[in-house]
């Protein structure tokens, strides 16, 4: 289990992701990237689709990536890494390479839940040996906070604004983690930027398996969620405490919830800290919508508990 000291040791030996990128001050994405990269001792090749991470880390001729890294387009990171992994397999067979190299995708929710879903599903079905890390900040942040299928219901987005007729995004967010789990791959998990050591442990566990591995990481976007610049960690922590974003794993089909909050913290406590939900607290109709949001959080949590009961590690 990589402790914080082990991660620090590895970074001292070689910085894989440098400063000098243009991600926002306080952005949670680099926190996730650094931890994941430091949690894998082997050499790593990374692919990213178009998004905040890609744009801000690779402005020609500067690159914050000190590992081999490739960006091609928005919807095809999983297809690109499939090609890299296939080349690795064959070149290894032919004797051109002897090192163990690991393959990682860092992709936003846009390039994963929506436009990238097909390529992801294809790569999962074909069984390529790679780790896909979704940096889920719940909207197309790089292009200006437009809604994605990861955007929660009632959140304000620039293509689902709060208006007289429709208050924010009408649809519930997609449960992509479960969609991925339905592909039957060896390792699936949900993690959050507020629990980076938990994330590092998950990465290490994942990398023990051959084949496709997926970790969906709730990654706060202070700008898009309209929260203070230094609030990324507190935000994600509240999302976990209110059961909005459960931390769990599905290992070879077996469900394990990593953290069960002892207290029942209403999701309203989390919603009220963010500007993207501000309208729910200024309008009398907001109360009903908050109740709906809570009901859905409860429904998904109950379902997850049942899955752990039926398909748990012990069962």
């Amino acid at each position: 289990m990589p402790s914080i000291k082990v991660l620090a040791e590895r970074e001292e030996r070689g910085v894989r992701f440098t400063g000098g990128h243009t991600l926002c001050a306080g952005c949670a994405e680099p926190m996730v990237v650094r931890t994941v990269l430091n949690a894998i001792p082997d050499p790593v090749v990374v692919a990213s689709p178009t998004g905040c991470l890609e744009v801000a880390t690779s402005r020609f001729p500067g690159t914050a990536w000190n590992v081999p890294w490739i960006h091609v387009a928005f919807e095809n990171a999983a297809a690109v890494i499939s090609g890299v992994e296939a080349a690795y397999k064959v070149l290894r067979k032919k004797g051109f390479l002897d090192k163990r190299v690991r393959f990682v995708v860092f992709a936003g929710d846009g390039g994963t839940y929506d436009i990238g879903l097909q390529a992801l599903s294809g790569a999962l079905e074909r069984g390529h040996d790679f780790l896909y890390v979704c940096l889920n900040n719940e909207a197309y942040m790089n292009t200006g906070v437009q809604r994605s299928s990861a955007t929660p219901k009632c959140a304000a987005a620039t293509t689902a604004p709060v208006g007289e007729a429709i208050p924010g995004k009408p649809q519930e967010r997609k449960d992509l983690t479960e969609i991925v789990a339905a592909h039957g791959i060896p390792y699936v998990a949900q993690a959050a930027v507020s629990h980076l050591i938990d994330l590092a442990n998950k990465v290490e566990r994942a990398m023990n398996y051959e084949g496709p591995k997926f970790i969906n990481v709730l990654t706060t976007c202070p700008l898009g969620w309209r929260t203070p610049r230094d609030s990324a960690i507190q935000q994600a922590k509240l999302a976990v405490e209110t059961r909005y974003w459960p931390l769990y794993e599905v290992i070879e089909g077996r469900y394990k919830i990593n953290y069960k909050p002892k207290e029942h913290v209403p999701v309203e406590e989390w919603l009220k800290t963010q500007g993207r939900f501000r309208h729910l607290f200024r309008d009398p109709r907001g109360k009903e919508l908050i109740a709906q949001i809570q009901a859905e959080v409860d429904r998904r949590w109950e379902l997850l508990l049942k899955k752990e009961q039926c398909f748990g590690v012990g069962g």
Partner: protein
Amino acid sequence: MRKAITGHKAVAEAMRQIEPDVVAVYPITPQSEIAEYYADYVHNGLVRTELIPVESEHSALSACIGAAAAGGRVMTATSSQGLALMVEVLYIAAGLRLPIVMALANRSLSAPINIHCDHSDAYLARDSGAVQIFAESAQEAYDYTLMAQRIAEDMRVRLPVIVNLDGFTLTHTVQPVDLLEDEVAKKFVGEFKPFAPLLDVEHPVTWGAFAMPDYYFELKRAQEAGMEAVPAVFLEVQRAFAEVSGRRYEGFFEAYKLADAEYALVVLGSTAGTAKVAVDELRARGMKVGLLKPWLWRPFPGPAVAEALAHLKAVAVLDRAFSFGTMGALYEDVASALYPLEKRPILVNYIYGLGGRDITVPQLVQALEELPKIRRTEWALRYIGLRE
């Protein structure tokens, strides 16, 4: 070794001899058999290739890019809607200077949906930055697939190369093809030299950086330099191919009875075969006609084409696709090449053969016979074989 095989088998055989490291491919009529033959080779252990049966053509070329950037030799094949779906990625492959070779079984683009031959798919990729070669026969498809690998991988070029062969007309008809011995073909194609491979983990590189207005223009100009290098490399590779095969392709196009001709056709692909019969028929009747059949279409060998056509009285350029709203793409290439000349032939543009509409010897004879009657070049499309 001479075999009676279809065009797609000929391409598959060339691929087998090239033995790329990775093939990522998605089926579409009339290309599917290329993928099927290759899958057969892989599943029977005849080639050491990782075959990625991707879930779409967009992913096919994306996986090819990943594999090529990783340091592998990569090939694929597609057609029509498949090319249309992957064309975003084709532009990217060219911009990233990746030497991916792909067979394009020329088929019409929807709508309406049609599975038969025309060149609208090749025309869609016209400005993509991919090199484009056209084959007249299964033999040329085989030969040029081998040559394409050398052209693509040449360090002066480093671009994707498309080998066009007419859907059904060439892919599905059985023709005699002289295949090189495996060892001879392999030696001709040579070892792949990767550039800045991702898998060289000791030297991490970033592929696909984001360029702002301060650098984009220069990066694209550098890409054009790769295209500019193609003609010289093309001729070198043809000469090298002649040495191992005895088949002499000399030049960017085949000039058939063109040197002393007064009237000629310019056409891409298998229709050139039919056109040669029409030319021979008219020659027998005393009319001085000829044919110019480009092998290399992108980059367009403008000055060479202009020089070859300059002496003619009139030329009919045949396009097997619309470029809606303007003259045909091949016509525009020829016209712009001829424009700088003081003395140049009258030009006329025919659209023909769309969606697999057959083109016959009598139709081409008629097109040539009409040429002396045309007074001057006009901005107007004509059609062969269209019901008004």
